[in-house]
């Protein structure tokens, strides 16, 4: 496990980010730094703004105030398309391209966006698929895969862009219990190679195992931000205790 290290470069920095949908403030003056090789796990009650936080980082939601800085560069409308290439995101509902085979799902972005050669992209895809134990699914269409397989393909699809940081929004919560492990194993592998990640999950045991830092998001704010050990043992916060007691039951 890699522990938080202040010497490491800050990849991503949110500074006083505010996001509202109409009158509903979903992110309220939120600040957060993510350093290289850190694995930040977000948890918190439903509606707390976890998904919205990930979506703003990826430019899928516009922020109302504050700034997001990626490797020293402020994210704007102009550069978001470029910055996105370095930020992988995996959604709860997989969002694979239904009209393409697994192979084409994996290679289309590297080929069309990064202008990689098709051969190189296929070779790389094959390698990832081998690692994640689904190399026999290259010619399948998404509808022919199980949920766990779909999610692993979605992870590979994001990894094909050689991202700097990966965002996961409840990657296992649409899955049957027996498929959760295979997806968590895939994320573990990314942890082993030092991938920087922000993960929203309710899998607390998994979070304990991989997270270098835990955040508790509640009513539009980061209520607790602590190294993993401390988060589970040393934090005196009534709401967090309540949340943990419910979720660990």
């Amino acid at each position, binding site marked *: 496990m890699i522990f938080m290290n202040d010497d490491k470069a800050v990849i991503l920095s949110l500074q006083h980010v505010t996001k509202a949908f109409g009158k509903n403030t979903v992110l309220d003056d939120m600040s957060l730094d993510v350093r290289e090789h850190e694995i930040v796990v977000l948890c918190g009650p439903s509606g707390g703004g976890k998904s919205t936080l990930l979506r703003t980082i*990826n*430019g*899928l939601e516009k922020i109302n105030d504050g700034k997001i800085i990626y490797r020293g560069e402020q994210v704007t409308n102009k550069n978001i*398309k*470029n910055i*996105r*290439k370095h*930020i*992988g*995101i995996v*959604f709860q*509902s*997989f*969002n*694979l*391209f*239904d*009209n*393409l085979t697994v192979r084409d799902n994996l290679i*289309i*972005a590297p080929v*069309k*966006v*990064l202008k990689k050669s098709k051969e190189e992209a296929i070779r790389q895809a094959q390698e990832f698929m081998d690692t994640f134990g689904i190399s026999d699914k290259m010619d399948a*269409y*998404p*509808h*022919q895969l199980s949920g766990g397989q779909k999610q692993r393909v*979605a992870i590979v*699809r*994001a990894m094909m*862009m050689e991202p700097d940081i990966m965002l996961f929004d409840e990657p296992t919560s649409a899955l049957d219990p027996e498929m959760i492990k295979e997806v968590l194993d895939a994320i573990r592998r990314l942890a082993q190679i030092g991938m920087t990640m922000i993960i929203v999950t309710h899998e607390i045991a998994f979070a304990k195992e991989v997270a270098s830092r835990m955040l508790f998001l509640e009513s539009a704010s980061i209520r607790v931000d602590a190294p993993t050990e401390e988060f589970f043992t040393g934090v005196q916060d009534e709401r967090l205790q309540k949340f943990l007691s419910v979720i660990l039951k």
Partner: protein
Amino acid sequence: MGFNWRILAGTRDMYLDGLLVTILYSIVAIIIAVLWGILIGSINFRRVKGLSLITRAYTTFFRETPLLVQIYFWFYGLSRIMPVSASVIGVMALVFNDGAFIAEIVRGGLQSIDRGQEEAAYSLGFSKSQTLFYFLIPQAVRKTQDSIMNMVSIIIKDTSLLMWITITELTYVAHRVNSKFYQPITAYLTAAAFYFTLFLIVQGIKKLMDRRAEKKNGLIAT
């Protein structure tokens, strides 16, 4: 009266020529109308500033006014401003009218696709137009292929209105045969039989496409 086979024997070549003209106009109009419909449907779906206002007005206007009025409008109106042949006007009228219907079908198909795939595309660095082109349009077309194929049948039938601008397609031939021999049942039933054959061919193609789509990605055409 009744059906007169003798007349048919004597006018066979006329009918075949007419059929050929009908098929040619149909194919050209279908190809262009589908492409045009996809283009306009996509613009309507995207709500491109300013442009969508125009394309939406166009779509509504051309769907809600009679095709024959539109054909006359282009034929007598446009040809006054610039020299255009009846055949160009004919294709154009069909494309503008039937293309507007296809545009609405395509827009509906685009709207029925879950937003998640679009967001996944953006997150991988695709632009809006790339996302439409690589992911959304192929799926919208596949989802709506039955409705689009219905429009194909309609376009084939719509070519019969082109007789009013001197195009000697199948219906025009039937008309001429009737005025020559005064045998309306033979004249028009023959034309109808040809149209129906074309419809059956379209149905066959539709079945093949359905089967292919099913095999390919299990998307059920609605």
